[in-house]
């Protein structure tokens, strides 16, 4: 299964959603991931012998913090109501919001953040006034927006909205560009389920995550439906 994980970061640089899919994935920072059965954060994660988490202890203590807002729901295994067999398979091996504050998440964000800055500074147009310069250097200019980066073992796709929401999906390195998919997720899943939902915040405090069932299900179904068409 070529989709490894899906992350959403907000404008405050916090990870407000992380979805790991139970596949042979590797930590994007290059370390191989292993979740020990003892670490609380990945209690429901099917242990995979090819993983090895070098920082499993901090992980577990930080992941449990997430549950205080989402009252443990974020870490429970999803039993999908979807009839889609592939979706079931995908979902049963994964975790929801168990990785939000761990090193993986921070490293991933840091990498993307730096790449974005580099891309932007390589290609800024001439500006005439001080104000234009301010507008240009503001993080949201899209003169040279980062789209993805690829290593030997994975490809990381990135989409940033103008209001600072960052959508990230980590896949098999041979996957095609998933920019349009990330945009699609923003428009047809995030917007109806979170923005138009008066019971869901759009401004997240430090430990708050998106733990809404409907949202997670929609995301899972979306990625499951894309599985075959990824390369």
């Amino acid at each position, binding site marked *: 299964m070529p989709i490894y994980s899906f992350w959403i970061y907000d404008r405050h640089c916090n990870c407000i959603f992380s979805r790991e899919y139970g596949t042979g994935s590797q930590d994007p920072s290059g370390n191989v991931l292993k979740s020990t059965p003892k670490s609380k954060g990945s209690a429901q994660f099917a242990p995979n012998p090819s993983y090895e988490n070098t920082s499993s202890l901090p992980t577990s203590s930080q992941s449990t913090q997430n549950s205080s807002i989402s009252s443990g729901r974020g870490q429970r295994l999803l039993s999908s109501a979807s009839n889609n067999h592939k979706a079931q398979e995908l979902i049963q091996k994964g975790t929801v919001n168990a990785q939000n504050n761990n090193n993986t998440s921070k490293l991933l964000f840091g990498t993307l953040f730096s790449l974005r800055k580099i891309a932007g500074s390589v290609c800024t147009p001439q500006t005439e006034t001080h104000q234009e310069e301010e507008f240009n250097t503001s993080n949201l200019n899209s003169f040279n927006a980062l789209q993805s980066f690829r290593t030997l073992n994975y490809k990381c796709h990135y989409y940033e909205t103008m209001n600072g929401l960052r959508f990230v999906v980590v896949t098999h390195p041979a996957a095609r560009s998933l920019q349009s998919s990330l945009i699609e997720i923003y428009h047809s899943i995030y917007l109806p389920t979170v923005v138009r939902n008066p*019971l869901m915040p*759009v401004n997240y405090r430090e430990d708050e995550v998106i733990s809404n*069932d409907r949202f997670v299900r929609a995301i899972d179904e979306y990625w499951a439906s894309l599985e075959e068409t990824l390369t």
Partner: protein
Amino acid sequence: MPEEFFSKEVSAMALEYLVNECVALSVRVEELLASDSVPGTLAGDVAGLKLEQDKPGTVDFASNPKFLGLNNLYRVERYGYEIGYKITDCIIYKKSVQEGVNIQLLEVLEVMKFICRDVWRMFYLKQMDNLRTNHIGTFVLVDNNFRPLINVSSAQGDADTIRKIQPYLQLPCGLIRGILASLGISAVVKADVIENRLPAVSFNVQTSLAK
């Protein structure tokens, strides 16, 4: 002038956000009125110094105990009532002048049909799905896909969603009550989610037959 009346439009999204925000506003107002501070001093901080946690984009109001309190429900219902009371004339005018349909609203049943068809179409872009009556003053209006509730869901699960949805159901209740009142019919309106299957909602209207 008559041609211009009722021909202007706005985005349905704008109205939907406005209506949803009413509920949050209602909780804020309740908080302010419950505290004994002098009104003048509160206006100072526009971002709301009194409700420090209530930053824009958060949903703290939903965990506020007053959210499901009677005062709040009553207040939101009142918003709906005022709207319903005033909108009836407009809708009737629109139908008779612009569409040339002569509405006879002599019987309560006719009024209920008017609500199911015309009012609902205007507000929620679709008609009510079902209207039942016991012919002695009680009506049940069923909307299987109630527009305002399509996207509402709580992070704590379905049961919690149904609990938290109560204030949002009060506004259409008030709307119906207001329309009936402006046509001289007094009624009690309650809303329920049908068999816990959001977004299907039924409105139970008990009219009093006294003339």
